[in-house]
């Protein structure tokens, strides 16, 4: 996180705000609610309180304007610059302006007013932009379905105003650090020749032409997918990737989520209802056999026959000796299986049923 240079802050922590005008894109009630919820995010973790006033000068004046609105920071029409806010202080200090050439929404369509307001009020309170892509105070607009302060945002605002009086201090999600040796994964899959790693709300992928690991929100590609995916695998000859969470799964083709999903794993794959979720999955391209890992067991599904093979489930150790009795994630590359459990990764040869190498989970990230 970054504090605004000069560390401006409100000495009086009981602040007032006033919505000077309303965008025609939303009902007044929706605008009021988005603004109120955005302030609540910050008051939940600090001693700050926010009271709405309907007339006169409030500490934080909120308005919807377009183009040059005489604050020496003109807006730029649709897209690009969405909104801005001023650091704590008298007069224009703390005020937030929203570009009314944008389309403001209360859902995941661009641009969610609650999400942008939460960011701008961070500026009104003394925060500058954060370099943490998972933080609300990151400069670029991303919307991953829910609006919440990340731990980075909480640390930043509490550095200015201290914690709230709540007996239990709220915590926020941490953004994965790709070179953190403690990094573990929720799911991993190949996709059109690349490998994508999933953790919480994020994906990570490497690109042969670009050494930096790309980390961003899963919603950048598939806004309909939930966070916290549990398993994923690619059926390459159908150019399809399947994502699993709980007893549901989704199928995507590139960036498109296929219609009619999510479906349940019982009807589609024939799992018994005792199976509540899948830990990991991988499909062997040359045999069309897909292995599902559930606790200490594995199931084998035939993609051509579209049914489970007889004799399954088996203990994982029978088909994959040496990789332990729990799998977090697995993918296939170059004819080998790469199994992940905690910080460990096993390179496994399915033909000889032998572990070839033991690696760190994040060995693919050139740390």
């Amino acid at each position, binding site marked *: 996180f970054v504090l605004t240079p000069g560390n401006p802050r409100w000495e009086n922590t009981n602040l007032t705000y006033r919505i000077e005008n309303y965008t025609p894109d939303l009902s007044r009630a929706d605008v009021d609610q988005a603004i109120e919820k955005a302030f609540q995010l910050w008051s939940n973790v600090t001693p700050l309180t926010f009271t709405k006033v309907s007339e006169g000068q409030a500490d934080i004046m909120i308005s919807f304007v377009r183009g040059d609105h005489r604050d020496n920071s003109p807006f730029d029409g649709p897209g690009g610059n969405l909104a801005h806010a001023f650091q704590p202080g008298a007069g224009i200090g703390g005020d937030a302006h929203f*570009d009314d050439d944008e389309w403001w929404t209360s859902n995941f369509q661009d641009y969610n007013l609650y999400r942008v307001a939460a960011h701008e009020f961070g500026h009104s309170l003394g925060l500058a*932009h954060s370099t943490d892509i998972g933080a609300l105070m990151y*400069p670029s607009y991303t919307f991953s379905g829910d609006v919440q302060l990340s731990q980075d945002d909480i640390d930043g605002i509490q550095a200015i105003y201290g914690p709230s009086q709540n007996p239990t201090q709220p915590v926020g999600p941490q953004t994965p650090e790709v070179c953190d040796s403690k990094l573990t994964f929720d799911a991993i899959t190949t996709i059109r020749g*690349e490998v994508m790693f999933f953790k919480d709300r994020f994906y990570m992928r490497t690109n042969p032409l670009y050494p930096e690991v*790309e980390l961003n929100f899963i919603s950048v590609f598939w806004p309909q997918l939930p966070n916290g995916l549990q398993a994923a695998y690619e059926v390459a000859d159908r150019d399809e990737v399947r994502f699993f969470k709980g007893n549901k799964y989704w199928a995507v083709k590139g*960036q498109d989520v296929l219609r009619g999903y999510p479906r349940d794993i019982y009807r589609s794959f024939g799992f018994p209802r005792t199976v509540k979720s899948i830990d990991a999955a991988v499909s062997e391209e040359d045999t069309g056999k897909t292995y599902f890992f559930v606790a200490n067991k594995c199931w084998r599904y035939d993609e051509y026959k579209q049914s489970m093979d007889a004799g399954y489930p088996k203990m994982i150790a029978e088909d994959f000796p040496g990789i332990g009795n729990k799998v977090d994630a697995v993918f296939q590359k170059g004819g080998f299986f790469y199994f992940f459990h905690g910080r460990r990764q096993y390179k496994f040869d399915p033909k000889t049923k032998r572990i070839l190498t033991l690696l760190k989970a994040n060995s693919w990230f050139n740390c």
Partner: protein
Amino acid sequence: HGFPAATSETQEQDVEMVKKYLENYYNLNSNGKKVERQRNGGLVTEKLKQMQKFFGLRVTGKPDAETLNVMKQPRCGVPDVAP
């Protein structure tokens, strides 16, 4: 974004976008005579590196595909660096 990840060459209009982005968010001042513009070239590279560092991109000083991709994303109007 896309599969596989896009890698494109810089187009003419991208050059203008890069300059505008750096003026808006990285205090690249836009005035200056010919000579200034030369220096500006070095200044643009320096500001581009500052932006790439902020966004965790490879710091090349050149507007590569990933850098242009970030610059095209809608964002907050407050600069990323102190005035």
